[in-house]
């Protein structure tokens, strides 16, 4: 399959390893990966913060970057950016009264997938031959869980990883407190939510906290690093791409 990587601006700029791992995984499965370099940001931060008008050019840009007929699927190592495209793009285009954009989206949006749902739901693979001998706590990202409804797809992938000690995270589905601009606009509330998430992670004795979204990992990892907690954050894609040396 010819797959276009939707890297997301956050992964592109701050978490390139998640993108590299995604490319490696898809190539190992025999797919041809393209990276449309015209892509920048999907506009989620603008749209979710009340700047819907300012998000519109970014929306149109996304559609231009990914609308090539050669592309059979668009895959992103992020649940919230995919939720933006699949759930919010059609609504924003309709509200803006842009029929051409709405029409293009009706074709494109259903072909945009979050990595774990693409692997399990579209490709039907669970065992990627990964080896990762670490104690891992998995944090389910809110948008992947409640908007994309990825269900247990990421856990099914992680359970097949050899050597992994996957531990149950208490209150796993409680938000980590990132929420985009929420983390800076409501910094104290976000910090309080983060403190409780970190407490849950530390209680498991995990060495690694994994998630589908780098935004959650930015939040959780930022807090763990600041506290010198001795726990690192890793994107699920990187665990799935890890091999026995």
């Amino acid at each position: 399959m010819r797959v276009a990587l939707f890297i997301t601006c956050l992964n592109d700029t701050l978490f390139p390893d998640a993108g590299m791992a995604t490319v490696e995984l898809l190539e190992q499965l025999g797919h041809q990966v393209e990276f449309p370099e015209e892509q920048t940001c999907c506009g989620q931060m603008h749209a979710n913060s009340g700047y819907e008008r300012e998000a519109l050019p970014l929306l149109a840009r996304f559609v231009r970057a990914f609308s090539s007929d050669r592309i059979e699927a668009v895959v992103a190592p992020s649940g919230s950016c995919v939720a933006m495209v699949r759930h919010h793009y059609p609504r924003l285009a309709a509200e803006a009264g842009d029929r051409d954009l709405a029409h293009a989206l009706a074709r494109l949006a259903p072909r945009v997938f979050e990595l774990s749902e693409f692997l399990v739901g579209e490709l039907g693979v669970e065992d990627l031959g990964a080896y990762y001998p670490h104690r891992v706590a998995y944090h389910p990202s809110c948008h992947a869980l409640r908007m994309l409804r990825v269900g247990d797809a990421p856990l099914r992938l992680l359970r097949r990883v050899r050597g992994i000690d996957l531990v149950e995270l208490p209150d796993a589905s409680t938000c980590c407190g990132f929420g985009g601009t929420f983390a800076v606009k409501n910094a104290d509330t976000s910090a309080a939510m983060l403190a409780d998430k970190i407490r849950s992670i530390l209680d498991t004795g995990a060495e690694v906290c994994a998630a589908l979204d780098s935004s959650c990992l930015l939040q959780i990892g930022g807090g763990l690093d600041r506290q010198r907690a001795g726990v690192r954050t890793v994107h699920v894609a990187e665990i799935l791409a890890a091999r026995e040396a």
Partner: protein
Amino acid sequence: MTSFPAAASYELRDPQLRHNLRKATHTIRDKRARVIAELDDWEQLREAGLRIKSRALRHLDVHLEALERAVTGAGGVVHWAPDASAASRLVTDLVKATGATDVIKVKAMVTEEIGLDAALAASGLRAHETDLAELIIQLAGDRSSHILVPAIHLNRSEIRALFRDRLPGTEELSDDPAALAEAARRYLREKFLTARVAVSGANFAIAETGTVCVVESEGNGRMCTTLPQTLITVMGIEKVLPHFKDLEVMLQLLPRSSTAERMNPYTSLWTGITPGDGPQEFHLVLVDAGRSETLADQVGRQALHCIRCSACLNVCPVYERTGGHAYQSVYPGPIGAILTPQLARLKDGASLPWASSLCGACYEVCPVKIDIPTVLVHLRGRVVRETRGYPGRSERAAMRALTAVLGDRRRYELAQRAARLGAWPLSRDGRIECRLPGPLAGWTLVRDLPLPSETFREWWRAHRRAEP
């Protein structure tokens, strides 16, 4: 009104509050999940609840006039209040006309919305809350912090101290919940037996029959609606339901979502007056106070579906940390964040739509399927477009500038490089550990920031891109 972030910062510093909230919300959240799991048609019930409420609101005018006819036909009197001050003036005049000086009250958040207690006091009339938690709040001179458990922010030792201070004959009172309830019961019993006027709220009112419904746990509501000579019910116009049979759905959705009970202990239903039995004078005050304007917003109007169960508060990670006072609103939590600004025509509570990480837990539990995250985002847009003030000018300018950068590949790539170069001197081992100025100050207060040595696209160009 202080902004939510500032009010929340204050509340977050109270460790006792954090402990009380965590314990209370988790207990009720878990209990709710258990009783919901008992029903295999819960999702269909939610869908039915959504449809009943949206149908009721679609023809609100018709149902309200039908309600008026039915109530009038059953011997009641219906009053229409376009705004808060008209409503509180109306109720005050009705109380004054009875010659009574004291009023007992139950389950009427809308009276808090219209500022009834202050209006009564200004006319020399005393209001006595009879719902246990509301009584606690009133005795403490405090404000409610939860829709269903208004005193959720207080624990039993704090309540004991309050009762000892304010209720006569409680010097030896222990903090045993049964003893606390007994002390309140003795105090309230005297009020019930002497009151001549009661003010109640309404959970539902049936257009078809003129029946009003109040759902409660303590039985104090039934005392209020049966003992006094005069009963004044104050309700928001969105509480009307077209048909009596609609209660079949609503009375399953509400108790399981609010108190996590299969059925609530007391459901009072009355239709006008019954000669020789119960109140002989019944007034129904229908309050608009911003509801008609809320109804005009196609996305925002679903906030009026709310049946005040408070399930969204109990699962909200923001509410669990800040408590209800941070919202500075009669209606706190996620539902308050979408209802308050709309009822206030965005003049109040402008920062509330941002009081959420958009995690979606509220939408998942709402018994009438209010898509709270979508309404929050919609209201953020309305606040930005229709008002000034919050968010500040610098944020608005920065977001616009950012679109210009992100909307152009060359500028985007330049910005990536510039950010890395600019941040490099501040970093150590690929991380920024110091406190940054400006909008990132809130971030670096409690978090580090990663700073990788290359972007993904740089890696792609070096390792994957075919030569041009």
